[in-house]
């Protein structure tokens, strides 16, 4: 249970950080486990990002088989999408950097 609380705490901390617009946790099938955004947006992000992550993982693997994808950052004009993949879960954070 404590570990559960830790996870909840951490998720709350991330959501409270400056500029963070949303957080999604999806599993390897693309099913959103935890999300702070509305359902449609979540599904949209989940579907698109999971496919992108698969491709990105393959890129890193093929270029150097000892490396693995650690983090993927997509910067657009309005915000930045940070994707942190693992073997079974992917964490997606959408942030508007305050430094601008």
């Amino acid at each position, binding site marked *: 249970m404590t570990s559960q609380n830790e996870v909840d705490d951490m998720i709350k901390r*991330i959501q409270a950080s400056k500029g963070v617009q949303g957080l999604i946790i999806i599993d390897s099938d693309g099913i959103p486990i935890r999300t702070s955004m509305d359902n449609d947006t979540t599904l949209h992000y989940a*579907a698109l990002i999971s496919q992108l992550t698969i491709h990105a993982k393959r890129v890193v693997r093929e270029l150097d088989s000892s490396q693995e994808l650690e983090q993927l950052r997509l910067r657009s004009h309005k915000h930045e999408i940070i994707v942190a993949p693992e073997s079974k879960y992917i*964490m997606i954070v959408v942030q508007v950097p305050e430094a601008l």
Partner: protein
Amino acid sequence: MDIQHVYTKKRSEFGRQVIFTDRAVESIADIPPNPDLSREYISRNPVELAIQNVREFSEHWVNTVRFETENRGINHVEGGWPKDINPLEPDQTSRFRKKTEKEDGFTRSMLSLGNLVEHTIKQNNIVDIYENYFQNLEPDVVEEAPYAKTVNIYRDPHKTRRAANHISWYADGARKLAVSYCNLEFQSGTNDSFIDSYIWDTENPTKPDLHLKPISPLVCIEFNPKDTHQLVGGCYNGQVCIFDTRKGSTAVEQSLIENSHRDPAYKTVWLQSKSGTEFFSASTDGKILWWDTKKLSEPVETLILDIEKKGRLENALGAMSLEYESTIPTKFMVGTEQGRIISCNRKGKNDAEKIGNVFPGHWGPVYALQRHPNFLKNFLSVGDWTVRIWSEEMRDDCIMWTKPSVHALTDGQWSPTRSSIFFTTKMDGTLDVWDILFKQNEPTLSIQVVDEPLHCLRVEEPHGRLVACGSQNGTVTLVELSDNLCVQGKSEKALVNGMFDRETRRAKILEARGRARRDARGKSAHGEKTEKATTDGATLESELKEADPIEKAEKDFWKIVDEEKRKRDRKAALAGEKAAAEAGETTQAEEAAPATAETTE
């Protein structure tokens, strides 16, 4: 040695078989080498020669076969859930979620991922890592060879062969092109020729965006700069019609055929007016008609192009091209079929006042006429085999012109962004880019766009980067130009202005001199008048009389060469004296030299 050989032959012997005989070899001329001439030359030592051993490359552009694309949409629904869970039931999904959260690896991976992501977020909040440091610096002008490449080719989907004879860009950005197709060959029209014209979307070369169905083939088409959905078209039978892209393919309005032109309406141009509904059209029947789109039953005004200003239609010159600049709303220029260029003023009360200067023009129809976008006094005209640049101040002659080319020129236009560049199309299918500051005797870049004659060209307005050319087969090609043909340098405008001024002054001086000579020849009694004329010419000429740099350079060159020769002769003389004195020592010096060479090594 005689260059010619004269012989006589009897008429009866013409056509006889020729009998050849051998002859001994005879030396006709023998020019021995003259060693004295070698003293005019100085041997060069050291000689610099650059060699490079590189593999030879060649670059080649290829266009692949066009493939047809279509746009379709797919509807996504939620998915990814395992088979036994119905995604629409919230408690099933939440149960699944809770189960996943309780799995072993979940907490661990979440914590590690969370740390990583937090670090990134904090980093983003501190520093903008995507900042572009040098955004405000102007890019350095890189001197690279100008190039142009074909971006897209729009082929007439219909089988009949018609020439694309006028192109107009969509007024609001470069997304659409209106092209008018018409078979202008004399008496070649068959009754079943297709008369539609198209509006193409630049992204879709397979199918035109819209078909425009006029009553008679369109010879000219123009988007309305004020209302981007309206187009005006001049028809082959002389009528003009208005299209509206929102209202379908047929013409919304059509002028009455009795009040229209009697020949194809070759050019229609929108006028600058408050309502944005006025335009005027020109045709080879000698009339210029002003229209208002609200009432196309008859023209608002008529002008007959009789340069003798008597308003006689039989004497009128046929108009082929129009020039209208929206910043000078009352004046316009007409290029005629007979080659003259007439500058007119709309505000005249009758025809005689409307027609202004007549420039001599070309030896054939003037196909294109355009004022320079930055220097409104100068304009270019394209006709016969040359392009001529005129100044409004010089009525008798153009100030600059190109060398006559092998193929006839069909269309021309100034570049909207660079002051010194203009484009022309030729009958052999080439698009020429001329840069008058760079090279004046030939085009800076000449691209073979298609193999058949190109009939029209239009540069995309605000950026000047894309050029659309229409060919005789109805193929419209979109060409993109390199940066150095679109981006203007800092001093370019001033340089071009200076060039136009210089050429205008030169033309004026020539004219003044010509006049002075004519006066001197004809009226030698009126001494004062001729003197005044010559002094005028002299003052103009003295303005141009700078120290002639070519003569100066030549004098310097020969001075240097003579000095070198003298130095060499002096050295030779000294060496000759020394050689006699040191004849004995030379052999010793030679032996000593290799020994010293070894020790130094």
